[in-house]
């Protein structure tokens, strides 16, 4: 096969705020370059071999869904840690991003254990951090929308995805947004993230193609004018 396999983790349970758009964006941007793509939906309780996947995507969810997937994620913790170590590309948004840290202490004192891919903890707060976000990242400005009450604190030495230029990001204090370990990324940006940030979308595809085929020559340039216009109109909103 001349293409990539995308695993969509918890597509029904963790899919809110248009997270599906990220899978659509990755799929289309491969297809427009004449590459094949296969999307494997991976709901809770269904076994999956992460060695199959080039890119694993997992979205955000409401509190109730987050509790539902937390146990399932624990059972996959070893397999996910191994895939991350081997350079599989991961993109986790909001609710799953939080569970990829060590733990999530909710506002009512419940502790939801995470799988510790990222060296970080999340603490539930009373105030929701809601609004448009602009983040300075290695792929240029990333624009999105955040909506979370958990505040995430990275350990010293844990790499972030970027610095917040507008909005809250991981929490309201440190100015950091998201996290990265090898090719595993976490972020609070939804809205959807990848359609409006084609440089980051292609960055993920590049990592995956290089890992699978040794080079990313197939990643020919696309006309991203509309993408940039949408990003510009989003970053003008406050």
């Amino acid at each position, binding site marked *: 096969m001349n293409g990539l396999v995308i695993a969509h983790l918890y597509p029904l349970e963790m899919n809110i705020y248009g997270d*599906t*758009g990220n899978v*659509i964006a990755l799929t289309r941007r491969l297809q427009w370059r004449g590459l094949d793509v296969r999307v494997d939906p991976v*709901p809770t309780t269904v076994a999956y071999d992460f060695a199959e996947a080039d890119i694993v995507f997992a979205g955000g969810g409401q509190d109730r869904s987050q509790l539902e997937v937390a146990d399932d994620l624990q059972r996959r913790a070893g397999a996910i840690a191994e895939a991350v170590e081997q350079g599989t590309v991961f993109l986790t948004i909001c609710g799953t991003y939080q569970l990829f840290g060590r733990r999530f202490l909710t506002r009512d004192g419940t502790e939801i254990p995470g799988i510790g891919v990222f060296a970080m903890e999340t603490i539930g707060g009373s105030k929701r951090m*809601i609004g448009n976000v602009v983040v300075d990242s290695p792929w240029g400005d990333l624009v999105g929308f955040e909506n979370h009450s958990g505040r995430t604190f990275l350990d010293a030495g844990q790499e972030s995805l970027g610095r917040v230029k507008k909005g809250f990001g991981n929490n309201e204090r440190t100015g950091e947004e998201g996290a990265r370990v090898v090719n595993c990324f976490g972020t609070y940006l939804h809205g959807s993230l990848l359609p409006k940030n084609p440089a980051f979308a292609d960055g993920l595809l590049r990592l995956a193609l290089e890992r699978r085929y040794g080079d990313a020559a197939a990643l020919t340039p696309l006309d991203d004018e509309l993408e940039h216009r949408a990003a510009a109109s989003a970053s003008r909103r406050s």
Partner: protein
Amino acid sequence: MLRLVFAMAIGRAAGRLSQFLGRGGSAIPGLIAEKIDPCTIEKLAVGLSRGVVIVTGTNGKTTTTKMLVGILEAEGLSVVTNPTGSNLARGVATHLMRAASWRGRIEADIAVFEVDEAAVRTLSPRLSPHLVVVTNLARDQLDRFGELATTAEHVAAALRHADLAVLNADDPLVAEMADAGTETRFFGAAPQVRRLMPADSNLYGAEEESGPQPALQVRLESAEAEGYGERVELGMGGDRLEMHLQVPGTYNGYNAAAALLAGLEYGAGLDRAQAALEAIRPAFGRGQVIEHRGRRVRLLLVKNPAGFNQIIRLLGEVGESSVLVAINDLDADGHDVSWLWDARLEDLAGCGHRFGTSGIRAYDMGLRLKYAGIEAWSEPDLSAALERLVASASEGETVILVPTYTAMLRLHSMLLPGTRKREAWT
């Protein structure tokens, strides 16, 4: 009572002043009166001999309210209601005041109010409704509510103050509320109709798990597009009513089922109820058709992915048309436009419609269509986009506008200059 009389007099004067200044003012009289007498709503509502009905939920509030008012009026009842948009406390107070004498005596039998899902928790104990109708709960403006579960809690709390709940059996979050302790009646649809309703999120076409459906008092047996409306069949035990609704879409079949079930609680006769439902014209922006420069412009308000999916299904059934989707992100629309990615625009690829996008987030919508494999032009300016839409259709043709709330208000005022002030909420 003196306080109420004073509150109403000042509120009404403020409303007239506001209207004189050209600021609309549907909410002003109630807002001011409530400041002077915080029990304005309680004192007026108690005078309604047949009590109050509240209609709440994410989608379908406005049309269901209109339908129920029609059914009750056909029974000879005098009904107070609130038009679309004035569905917070101030709007309810204003419309109760309009039905009252200067001394605060209500000159109507019953009130049917559509109430915002976030306001229903506090309004329900104040109105002590006989009946609360819950149409459905879907993801809508999550930046306003935070979580869908929170909205469900608000509505469930509101039900505790009602004598009777009329619930949608096919919406799991709504059906769950039957446990709240209030006596419950259910409306819903036959299995073949339920399948027509796109689920909120099923990207991979997975069948949503659904538990056993509770016994239905009114069941939507069939629904199919017919002209600009919908032919539906409603079943009640052994009785069946077949009718042509002027409002389109399967979802309006659900609204009719909800309104009929509520109407039956007030002893509505089936023949009269059917005639009343058939007479219901589309509510403001909900399938309404306006003549504009020789074209028929059909307005389909869009608020959230569930509603968008219903419109997508409708667009799949009508012939090739010019369609303009106008997305704003102001307070009343929701600041977060990510829900566009949860709507199944892919279903419209290859359907032959000519698409354009407009509004503050015109390019976001254009991008959504691009990734769905649909070509579209984008023009953020609403008035220029409307011109372009009209120019793309020939005389006598129907063009379709799919705007969010504030985009609809602006487009409506362009299509029917001078009407906005009366219809708009403030």
